[in-house]
Every structure is written in C-alpha cells, then in structure tokens.
C-alpha cells in the first residue's frame, strides 16, 4: 500500500512529532507509515483521514 501522508503533512508544515501527538501515536509510527514499513489499522486510517479532511482512499492507495 502507498500513501500520501508525508505530502499532506508537509503541506500543513507539521513535523512528524506534531502529527504523532495529534493522532495519539509515536513519531516512529508516523515515520513507519510514511516510509511504507507499516500499514495503519482502520481506526488510525480514519483518524488520519478525519484530521486532513480527506477520504481514506485519497490518502491510502493499493499498489
């Protein structure tokens, strides 16, 4: 799965740490998602989508 998390985060000028604290996860988790090492659970994907005001499909795509 690929995602646009880094692009969306940088568009808001947020650091990984800032995004992590908004989502209630660690900075390492954000880095793992952005680098494609980890696919988030559905609840976390919904939280990310809600935070950026996008749908899940706009942020996460099947390879």
């Amino acid at each position, binding site marked *: 799965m690929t995602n646009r998390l880094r692009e969306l985060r940088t568009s808001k000028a947020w650091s*990984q*740490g800032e995004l992590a604290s908004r989502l209630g996860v*660690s900075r390492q988790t954000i880095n793992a998602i952005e680098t494609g090492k980890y696919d988030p659970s559905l609840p976390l994907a919904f939280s990310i989508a809600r935070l950026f005001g996008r749908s899940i499909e706009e942020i996460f795509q099947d390879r």
Partner: protein
Amino acid sequence: MSSATTKRLGAAIVLVLAPVLHVAIPGASWIRTSAAVAAGLMMIFFSRERIHDERVQDLKLKALSAAFSVSFTLTLIVNWFLNRDFHPGRDFDGATGVLRSISAFDLIVLTMVVALALFHYWRFQDAAPSAEPGDVSA
C-alpha cells in the same frame, strides 16, 4: 504499577537481584537463577511503552513470534541433535551430551532476549528518517 516502574523492576531483577542471589546463596543453581532472570525479562518485555500504540503492539507480537521460532529451533538443535537426547526419559534425568541441555527456563530467557533485541532494533529502524526531501521530523 506504572510501565516505567515495571520496566525498572524487571531490569533490577535481571541485572542485580538474580546475580546477587546466585552468588550469595550457597549451592545456588542456574535453574533457580534463570527463573528470576526469565521473570525480569518478561517484566521488561511485557511492560507498556511510554506511547503504547498499535505499531508497538504489532512489533512486540512479531518480535515474540520470531524469537520463539529462533529459540525453539536452537533448543531442538542443542537438545536433540547435538546432545542426541532423543529419549524422553532422559529429559528428566539430565542430558549426558557435550552441551548442557536447554531447560524450559533457558528457552524463556533466550526467547525474551531475542524478542527484546528484535523489538528495539525494529523500533530503531522505524525512527530512522528517510533521505527524502521535505522530511520535517522532530
């Protein structure tokens, strides 16, 4: 008990209490000491992280699965193949091979050590920033 306290207590058992008891008690055996070491390592591994999110849970489960496979395979190799300890009755009398057979507590200690190493290695990899431009990490 907080996660940090549990972790410190586990570390104290492994690093201080178990070695001290092993030396202080006359005739202390590794079997008794390894039980304390195993308990301490499990306290460290199963205590909550400062931010205990889904990635931590995922990595801990993966680390534990991998570690159990590694230590169980090693136990089979040492006990059954190197020590040629195929006879089930001998497991209770002590193996007579070149290497000391790995006990159940040794297996737990080995599993926990490998699991902790894998978990922290993967966590370290997660934290490593990528070389891509625009990485605003803090």
